[in-house]
């Protein structure tokens, strides 16, 4: 039976489960969910005014709000920081489109 079930996460055609069945329930949590991204959003923390619009609009909840202090080059101090969780970001670009101060840049993925 073991030979039909493959390795936990397969590396090649030799060890994928028979007929690509999934014998490990709930395994989606362990798998990459961002493989088709072609552009990744990069937040310019200096420009960012912490308006939270990207956090609001992100359809995947991939923008995370962190309790991390940040001081800009002009000396302005913020208590929070917004970052992108690249495990979940699909690269849709909605955040960059909505950002009122153009602090988010879409950078091509290099593979």
């Amino acid at each position, binding site marked *: *039976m073991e030979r039909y079930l493959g390795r936990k996460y397969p590396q*090649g055609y030799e060890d*994928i489960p*028979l007929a*690509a*069945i*999934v*014998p490990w329930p709930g395994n989606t949590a362990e798998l990459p969910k961002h493989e088709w991204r072609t552009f990744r959003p990069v937040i310019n923390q200096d420009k960012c005014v912490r308006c939270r619009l990207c956090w609001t609009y992100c359809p995947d909840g991939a923008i995370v709000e962190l309790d991390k202090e940040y001081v800009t080059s002009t000396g302005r101090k913020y208590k929070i920081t917004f970052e992108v969780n690249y495990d979940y970001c699909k690269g849709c670009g909605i955040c960059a489109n909505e950002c009122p101060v153009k602090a988010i840049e879409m950078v091509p993925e290099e593979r």
Partner: protein
Amino acid sequence: MASAVETKPVEKELGKPHERIAATGGEAAAYAARDADIDVAAIYPITPQTPIAEKIAELVANGELDAELIHVESEHSAMSATIAAAATGARVFTATASQGLELMHEMLYIASSLRQPVVMALATRALSAPINIWNDYADAMSMRDTGWIMIFSENVQEVYDNMIQAYYIAEHPDVLLPVVVTLDGFILSHTMEALELIPRDEVLAYAPKRPRSYRPVLDPDKPISIGVLGGPNWYYEAKIQHVLALRESPRIIEEAARLFEKRFGRSYGFIEKYMMDDAEVAMVAMGATASLVKAAVKRLRKEGVKAGMIKIRVYRPFPAEEIVKALENVKAVGVLNRAIAYGAPVEEPLFQDVVTALAVRGIMKPMVSFVHGMGGRDIFVREIVDMYKKLLDAAREGKSVTRTLFWGVKNLEGKPYI
């Protein structure tokens, strides 16, 4: 396996001869399903497969067969129900023909790529239009790329024997692929011949029902997902696994035939060679036509022509090595089939397989492609003798005929072919 040490057929050991009855090919397929003790059958009746569906229903109704018979509303559902039943670990059976097979088509790929050991009887029949219920191989040839193991039967006994072997092959842990056994529509499905039945206990000793847990099946206690999405990152690998399973399957097909011969005395191979030892010209044929070609070969031998024939029994996976070995020393090869590959370089599907098998091994010789018997058109021994004469001409000239010869088609010039 315990059977590997047995040398005598079971018949002699038990001291009782097997029952011999008169049966049609359709009944033979149903009897084989009965003797293999299937658990689930989902069949939608379609001419000329109807006798199989009728017989299965009868066997279930009168208690001879303890199986779940699912009354489905179409062939698409028949195959879907069969795949689903197989996915729970049941031994399954279905049957179809022609347009029904085409309606099943998308499920055929699913059966094979989900690696479900489905066994199907296919009463071969022409495809529309015009509507035609008679025999040719248009339907069988349409499923040759679906990844099924395909076995062609020449007579009623072979239908039965091939079906029994199909269960051995399909459910073998090293194969796990669906198998289709063909019987020529009407020519075999409705024609009565002598049939030697094998008792159920002997069939089950040959192709035993395995414990449910020997392969991944649907089980509420051990949940698995069957039929998942395979994105660009893993689809390719799953398909390669399927290809490799088909490449490995000849070993098991051969083993099934060898054990079958040991137990029941009838021998089967990937191909059957008929008078090929000293043959100068050979015809490749399949299905019920092979019997007719044998008669033609006999007639030609009386005339002093060294003719031979190869019958292809296992069509997928294609037994290329065996065929090349058998054809190596002949002067010309003819290929005879009841199907058309529209628009192909040479419009006959089997021809393409035979030529490819020879060509990739660097063997070139005069070849002629014959199409005959489309839509149930009668074919006679003298016509096949004429084909052999055409083949002898090709051998003498040392040149292939570059176009398919459509034999027996009516034309205003009164020629035997166009």
